[in-house]
């Protein structure tokens, strides 16, 4: 991973020259990869289901019916929000071939400190939430900053440093929670930070749903944090497609030497990219802190950082693609949760997620190669034709 000459992972299709490639074939190629991947993933999960003596079709149809009920849809959207943020955080790094595997540690520390600060101060609503967001972003960015500094000053690969920093962050978070930040509740074993006051709780969007003529079922709601995710998505789109910095990121990712030669500060770009990635990572845990649990405790959701890598890969680093990927992952998890009633282990969704990611990356790489060979052939054909 030293001097990465290859395209950013998750790949830049831009690289495959679009010369003289008929539109029809291009569309076919673009559709081929996700289609092949979906078929393969279904195949793997079907084998897993058959091996455990369950009829795959019945399972899939149950997942489809249960997963599309309004209640499930709302829960899916809510669960997709942190996955989306984690996916974007990872994708920002991927844009310049940086692997931020440390999202896990970044969001744990950020959620803990943001929840503590939020519980300690008292401010009017918007300001209060703003402060919590700010703390989370700052903490996430600084933790990623450690990896960034180690990379540009000492040449330590971010892959390994962020893995190590994950463990260190988990240790620090556990220590801070147990020794300094937890609120002891009589008769309860669960150690957690003090609950956030009303002013710091993110409003839900049930009112909006009512306006649309949809009534959220009893006990469910559409979390307001989805707005933050959308805002982050829009900003990410602007960054990638409409900003000079986004262009520089991509340039460094594809060819750091060429980028440096054309005047891009590669080190500065690296640091800023990792800070941005960590900043977004800091927001991952806040959907839960501000929307449902109102505190950070031992039972706080872990593992989103690693799932986020899968989401980013599946979404091909595109703001919209990651949204679909996050929704798909959340849908699989939600819709499999009722499978236990027909005696199918709910864990089938983890296998589905894993096989989807693996087959998607393989399929895209295969298609990229086919497209590249075709483009090459087309160029050769065209140049030979003009020479003759």
């Amino acid at each position: 991973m030293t001097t990465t000459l290859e395209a950013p992972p998750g790949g830049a299709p831009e690289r495959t020259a679009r010369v003289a490639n008929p539109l029809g074939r291009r569309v076919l190629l673009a559709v081929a990869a996700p289609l092949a991947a979906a078929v393969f993933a279904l195949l793997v999960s079907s084998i897993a289901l058959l091996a455990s003596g369950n009829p795959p079709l019945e399972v899939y149809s149950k997942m489809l019916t249960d997963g599309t009920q309004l209640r499930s849809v709302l829960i899916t959207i809510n669960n997709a929000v942190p996955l989306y943020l984690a996916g974007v955080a990872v994708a920002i790094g991927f844009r310049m071939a940086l692997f931020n595997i440390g999202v896990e540690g970044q969001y744990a520390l950020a959620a803990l400190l943001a929840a503590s600060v939020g519980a300690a101060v008292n401010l009017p609503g918007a300001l209060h939430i703003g402060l919590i967001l700010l703390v989370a972003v700052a903490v996430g960015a600084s933790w990623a900053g450690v990896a960034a500094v180690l990379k540009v000053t000492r040449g330590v690969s971010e892959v390994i440093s962020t893995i190590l920093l994950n463990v260190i962050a988990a240790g620090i978070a556990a220590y801070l929670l147990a020794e300094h930040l937890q609120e002891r509740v009589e008769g309860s074993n669960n150690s957690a930070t003090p609950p956030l006051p009303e002013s710091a709780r993110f409003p839900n969007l049930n009112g909006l749903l009512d306006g649309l003529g949809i009534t959220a079922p009893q006990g469910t709601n559409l979390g307001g944090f989805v707005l933050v995710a959308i805002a982050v998505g829009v900003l990410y789109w602007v960054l990638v497609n409409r900003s000079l910095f986004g262009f520089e990121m991509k340039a460094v990712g594809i060819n750091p030497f060429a980028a440096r030669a054309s005047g891009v500060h590669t080190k500065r770009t690296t640091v800023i990219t990792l800070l941005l990635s960590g900043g977004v990572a800091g927001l991952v845990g806040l959907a839960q802190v501000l929307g449902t649990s109102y505190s950070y405790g031992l039972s706080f959701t872990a593992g989103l950082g690693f799932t986020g890598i899968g989401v980013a890969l599946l979404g091909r680093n595109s703001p919209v693609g990651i949204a679909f990927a996050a929704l798909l992952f959340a849908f699989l998890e939600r819709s499999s949760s009722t499978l236990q009633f027909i005696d199918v282990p709910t864990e089938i969704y983890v296998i589905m997620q894993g096989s989807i990611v693996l087959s998607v990356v393989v399929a895209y790489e295969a298609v990229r190669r086919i497209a590249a060979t075709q483009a090459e052939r087309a160029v050769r054909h065209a140049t030979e034709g003009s020479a003759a």
Partner: protein
Amino acid sequence: MTVAGSPSPSLATPESAHAPKRRFGGWQKVGLITLGLLALLSLTRAISGLDEITSSGTAGAALRLAVPIGLAALGGLWAERAGIVNIGLEGMLILGTWFGAYVGFEVGPWWGVLAGLAAGAVGGLLHAIATVTFGVDHVVSGVAINLLGAGVAQYLSQVFYGDGQIPGAGPTQSAVVSPLPDVSLPLLSSGPDLLRDLEDTGLFFLSDAAGILGGLTRDVSLLTLLAVLLVPFSFFVLWRTSFGLRLRSVGENPVAADSLGVAVYRMKYAAVVISGAMAGLGGASLIIGSIYREGQTAGRGFIGLAAVIFGNWRPGGLAAGAGLFGYADALQLRAGNAVRGLLLLVALLLVVVAIVQLVRRRLPMVVAALGIGIAFFLWYSVVDSVPTQLVGFTPHLVTLVVLAAASQRLRPPAADGQPYRRGQQS
């Protein structure tokens, strides 16, 4: 995998400058460092009075805890020497634990070891198909395999153990696998157990050495022995056979290797499958005499990868790295308060560093080492114990510091992590 901004030129110089010296005194140097470390440990034990620092119990536990990490690290070494980064070690480790525990309980512990090894190898094969045949980015494929490995283990646990038909097993854990036989050194650590007698005398240095040696040789599981032997075995195969030379040439310069007739793809496949098998064996080592539990690997695959880098992509180095992780773990598990002794050990180590730097006349380094050393000593003298949560990541922090300090001098295989396609010079 790690590394330097500018590749070969800057790295070539120190390497070639050091080479003759290393050849001249390699073994003496290792021996000297081992003796020095032992002396420092004894000194730490004597000053702090924390006997656990060099007790045979700690040493034995350290060895046991180092085994899965060391095997994962060997897996990383095999793959990376052939140019394939294997982040999927964690997933292969998990596969090893699950299948090892299932077969180990149903058939017998040795079959469990074999099953773990085979399951890991299948994970490796999957990684090889994705990275070698399809050219998928190595880290990407590894991440996917980690997701998949964890998913398969969770799912299978539900299927096979979820109904509670096997006593002791449940949706997230297996039944107990019987242990493998233990061995000890005759006379020295069994029977008359001379090392134990020496350890009990409490003599400075001698009893410490006896404690550590006794711990490392008393009641050692055959699987542990096998794991330890795999380190020199890997060295021998990779550095002393033509197969190893070919395998490493693929990791250094696949294009050149190909032009000399080395079957690059086949070599990479072999390396990654062996890598997975090692990781699977590491998984099996966790469950033999114990059970499979969800999440029990706890990132050991990643730590193994860190140990590879810590050890500069060499078997001896990664064994030392795994030993360090195992020791810190053991100390924390056996006697939380003894961890305070580590602070003193670090202070003493830094004093040694300061002396070395003084000889080399690098004054800023002397001041820095002494300053940090004194800080550690003060920390040691004011606290009664170090919070366990912080101790848990000591080895990770040490690895990070070592990487930061030495990453310029580390030398990964030149083509590590790069995709290779026959006929394309990328």
